[in-house]
């Protein structure tokens, strides 16, 4: 955790972002997006949210509302690499569920039963991968699609997925 702590955006950086969006409509979304991107672990720690609330006078309840509404925001640290499986209708009929199960086995991830109904969010023990799902990428013609580190891969199969994940894990370029 000490590494994570030292990686938190510093107050100076936060102030810069907050100042940039001051008096602009919808400032909260802009501030949160930029601040999350400043964090190497791509998430919004509670202390950072409290700081934003204090500086902007936006109530914490409102900030929590926005952060939990948009799938983009994370309240927990993300793995170094992100894999997002589309679970929309088109991808579902093209068996995206199999891809999800395959990845869970491959990366040794287990679902927490107490989180039933919550959005899927699993990070490997070595913090290398975070596996998530999304309702739709809007790329239905290319189903099933998977997003890895911001890039969308189409017509995904288990074999293709295995190759890509291996290459990403080894740090090779895609």
């Amino acid at each position, binding site marked *: 955790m000490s590494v994570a702590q030292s990686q938190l955006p510093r107050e100076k950086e936060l102030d810069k972002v907050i100042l940039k969006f001051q008096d602009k409509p919808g400032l909260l979304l802009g501030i949160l997006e930029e601040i999350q991107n400043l964090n190497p672990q791509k998430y919004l720690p*509670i202390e950072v949210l409290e700081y934003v609330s204090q500086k902007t006078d936006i109530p914490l*309840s409102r900030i929590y509302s926005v952060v939990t509404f948009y799938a983009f925001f994370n309240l927990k640290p993300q793995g170094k690499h992100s894999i997002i499986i589309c679970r929309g209708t088109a991808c579902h009929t093209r068996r995206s569920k199999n891809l999800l199960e395959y990845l869970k086995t491959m990366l040794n991830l287990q679902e927490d039963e107490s989180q039933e109904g919550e959005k899927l969010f699993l990070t490997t023990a070595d913090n290398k991968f975070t596996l998530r799902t999304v309702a739709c990428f809007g790329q239905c013609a290319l189903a099933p699609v998977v997003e890895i580190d911001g890039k969308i891969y189409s017509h995904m199969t288990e074999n293709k997925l295995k190759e890509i994940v291996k290459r990403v894990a080894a740090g090779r370029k895609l």
Partner: protein
Amino acid sequence: MADKKVNIKIDGKDYQVEQGLSILKACQAAGIIIPTICYLEGISEEAACSICVVEVKNAKTLMRSCVTKVTEGMEIMTNTERVRKARKMNLELLLAGHPKDCFVCDRNQTCELRRIAYEMGIREVRFPKTVKLEMEIDSSSPSILRDPNKCILCRRCISVCEKVQSVSAIDTAKRGKLSKVTTFMDRGLGNVVCVNCGQCLLVCPTGALVENNEIAGVWKALADPKKFVVVETAPAVRASIGEEFGMAPGNLVTGKMAASLRRLGFDRVFDTQFSADLTIMEEGHELIDRIKNKGVLPLITSCSPGWIKFAEHFYPKALAHVSSCKSPQQMFGAVAKTYYAQKFNLDPRNVTVVSIMPCVAKKFEAKRPEMDSAFEFWKDKMSLKESEHFPDVDFVLTTREAARMIKEAGIDFVNLSDENFDEPLGISTGAAVIFGATGGVMEAALRTAYEVLTGKTLEKIDFEAVRGLQGIKTAEVDIDGMKVKVAVANSLSNARVLLEEVQAGKSPYAFIEIMTCPGGCIGGGGQPIPTDTAVRQKRMEAIYREDKNKPLRKSHQNPAVAELYKEFLGSPLGEKSHHLLHTHYHERAMV
């Protein structure tokens, strides 16, 4: 903008109405009832529930009447097959996810959802519950219990918390079927900036928000022969509790209330108004002292525990302005377990103090750890152990809870003959009654401060300028040539206006009264449901009627209070007062 009129048709009849009016209001003015759930006039227009839909000619879809404005030539139909079916379907979908255990619900008799389901002819549950998730009940607050499973996401609580109180302790979180109303990080109402005012609970259409029920503890104390159980009733309760028994708002039921409490089995029926008079003695002298000795001004009243917690979170720099006087509820507890216990040879450990309040924040106040002055008073004298620790006030019941106990005991409240409070802690003046309405503490303090400062008799004791339901009232009072500016605010968004001035060092006032709830205690979070502006007005009139009828109307004329000072306390702001009747505040984080 000139008030242009537009011609519209509602259900085939022609009407001329103001431009910019919502369809809902136009229909209401035409005497047509449109069912609503999420709508709350002037506070909440969330368009969340879709119950208020109407048909508009040539419109593709049904329109939500609460947020759709009338336009020239609009033809509105409120009672077509399509409208009835759509309203019913929308309501059935809301009901699908709602628990069906109405007979064990606190809001059994006052649930809007239940009433609307009845009125709209829902006689079967067609849709099963889709969300299987059982959400955790938030019991973190000593004042408010929140059951998210009963919530229908109408957002009225969120609106009132944000717009009326400017606290914003709650908002929606998550999306879709996981949506819920909650606090930051789901910390719970007891762990955030919630000030426990309970306005959310007054506007909740279901039983999702209720007071933290303390009835069981009171029954237990009443059944315990060792306990000497005394009850104190806040001023605003006598102007409202009749409503719980079907009486019209504005009925003053002081005598019936005292009689019913005696029948419940309380050993003494006392009055918080006694300690309201005591509060004026202390606070009035505090004001005089600060004016004479150039102390921190303006002085701000401290009777309203929601406001106190609000100040501790949001205006810590203004805390030096807040009177150090405890609220009347707490002064009563401290006096009952010291002076009264001593005078009548009671073991303070066996004295149980129950208060009946129009308020849910009072539950929090009674549990503040520093509210144990009686224990501190007796600790050395009686060699009490820490394990014998007791609070000054043991149980706090809302007006609603007290009414429920009276019903449970089978007492015919409406037909009871009037009875008096017991002496001496049941004696009070008219100045104490008006504590129940916004401006009342100010007026009561002025009545006493004037006479103490000038040594003259105050001829005109009605300070009309500080009465009424307006959010902020100001006045300039002439005390024998000395001009004193005063201000009164009710609801915390109004209080903010005065507090910004105080914090900036620019407040022109010497004395400020702040009440947390709209209208003051008569509109408190513990009052009968419904509590709306019209009901508040009626209760307020009852309060001033009681004041007018009292033989004594100035706190310093209260003979029982005078006796208390003579026999026990010494003088206002004296050493005993300091320990028993005054307190301190501390800054709280903005969480």
